């Protein structure tokens, strides 16, 4: 483990341990070591001893915000459906948060999914997470038996050989183009601030698609989604997806067929991404969890770009400002409107 990550790991353990010991939080949501290289496991510590299992490394790709509503509920005293809420404040939950995750928590607060006063946030300036798919590609898809993280490099063990790769070369695309690596809300800062970053080619992936013809874009889209097996890992890993009944599960009316028919799969991906418009913080969880390697983020990134260009809004930066699709101005752009 790199020095930065081991320092952060120790700080998280110490802080989470304290919070749990003092009773300030009833549970602490972070990551534990996985059972295979490049895997971490979302982990909920409920005792100071369990806090010792928490880790921080470059493979924390799941957005913990998605677990928050469930974990918050789990620490509430149990009660029947008709019982009144208990008196006094409800127990709190601790959680680690990088820039994008904290922004998701802001979105969740605006959408009344979590409340600020029930969270104790350990803010971490992110150096970016590593894409296991990119690492995999670096070694030609071979089996990786171990991986060691240095400060700026990764040593990949494969077939008894060691391959040294630059960390930045395998950073996830969303982290490469991240402009807000520091958390926007937090209670304790862990490690150093990562600072604001100015990214020239923030929308390079989107620009490339936009430059194509409609037919080429359709081809690209169809090619991407043809791999989809409809496992819904993208949806379920997304902290924005919390509808009790997702549109894909609606039966009256049924909006989307459930098999891997290309039209149904297309509609699923269009609507899934579209539902994230103005709310997505490009945390990259959807793309990271996709077992089939679909470049899902390009879809949400396009929406992010348009929301920023048209409405000057970036998701989750401001706790007070309304969500861009829950507000309007009199003179929003409307060049697309056909004049009769």
């Amino acid at each position, binding site marked *: 483990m790199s020095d930065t990550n081991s320092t952060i790991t120790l700080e998280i353990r110490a802080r989470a341990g304290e919070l749990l010991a003092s009773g300030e939080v009833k549970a602490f949501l972070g990551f534990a070591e996985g059972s295979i290289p490049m895997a971490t496991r979302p982990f909920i510590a409920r005792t100071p001893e369990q806090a010792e299992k928490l880790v921080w490394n470059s493979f924390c790709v799941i957005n913990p915000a998605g677990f928050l509503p469930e974990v918050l509920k789990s620490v509430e005293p149990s009660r029947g459906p008709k019982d009144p809420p208990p008196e006094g404040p409800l127990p709190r939950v601790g959680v680690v948060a990088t820039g994008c995750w904290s922004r998701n928590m802001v979105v969740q607060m605006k959408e009344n999914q979590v409340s600020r006063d029930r969270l104790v946030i350990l803010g971490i300036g992110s150096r970016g997470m590593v894409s296991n798919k990119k690492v995999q590609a670096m070694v030609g898809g071979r089996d990786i038996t171990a991986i060691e993280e240095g400060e700026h490099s990764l040593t990949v063990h494969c077939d008894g050989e060691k391959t040294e790769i630059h960390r930045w070369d395998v950073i996830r695309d969303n982290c490469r183009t991240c402009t807000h690596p520091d958390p926007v809300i937090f209670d304790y800062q862990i490690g150093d601030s990562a600072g604001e970053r100015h990214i020239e080619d923030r929308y390079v992936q*989107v620009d490339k*698609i*936009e430059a194509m013809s*409609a*037919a*080429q*874009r*359709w*081809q*690209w*889209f*169809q090619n991407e989604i043809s791999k989809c097996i409809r496992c819904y890992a993208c949806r379920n890993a997304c902290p924005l997806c919390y509808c009790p009944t997702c*549109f894909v599960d609606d039966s009256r*009316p049924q*909006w989307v*067929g459930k098999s891997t*028919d290309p*039209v*149904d799969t*297309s*509609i699923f991906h*269009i*609507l899934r*991404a*579209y539902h994230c*418009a*103005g709310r997505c913080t490009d945390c990259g969880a959807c793309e990271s969890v996709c077992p089939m390697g679909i470049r899902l983020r390009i*879809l949400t990134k*396009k*929406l992010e770009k*348009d*929301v920023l260009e*048209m*409405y000057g809004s970036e998701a989750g930066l401001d706790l007070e400002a309304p969500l*861009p*699709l*829950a507000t*309007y*101005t*009199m003179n*929003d*752009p*409307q060049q*697309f*409107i*056909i*004049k*009769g």
Partner: protein
Amino acid sequence: MNNEPSAMNETKWDPKIIAFLCTWCSYAGADLAGVSRFQYPPNIRIVKVPCSGRISANLILDALKSGADGVLVSGCHPGDCHYISGNYYARRRFALLKNFLEFVGIEPGRVNFSWVSASEGEQFAGLVSEVTETVRALGPATRLVKKID
């Protein structure tokens, strides 16, 4: 096979366009166009909705999936919404949706948005003519049209 004139080609394709019209302005505009006997192509099938704010991406995609060659959504002009602000919210959603559908390869012109007031019968007729011609020029929809074989 190639020498035989195909039945499909023989029947002249005529675009089918689903129009979602808000009941207060655009539907009234369509009504006025009829009452005033403004001619417009018979290619649209109107679905009357309370407000353009009611139109979700789900409905538009469902129309395309079910085989519509084009979609037209029309509501009150900004500022005229019967529910004060429904069309303002809708405008943001439509702007993003239109761009996004084009981003994934839906031809510009398949999905169209407009504002038509209750007094704009002639404009409505013009709009329908324009949209019909646009869709006709694009040809039958294939992308996002569900087929079973």
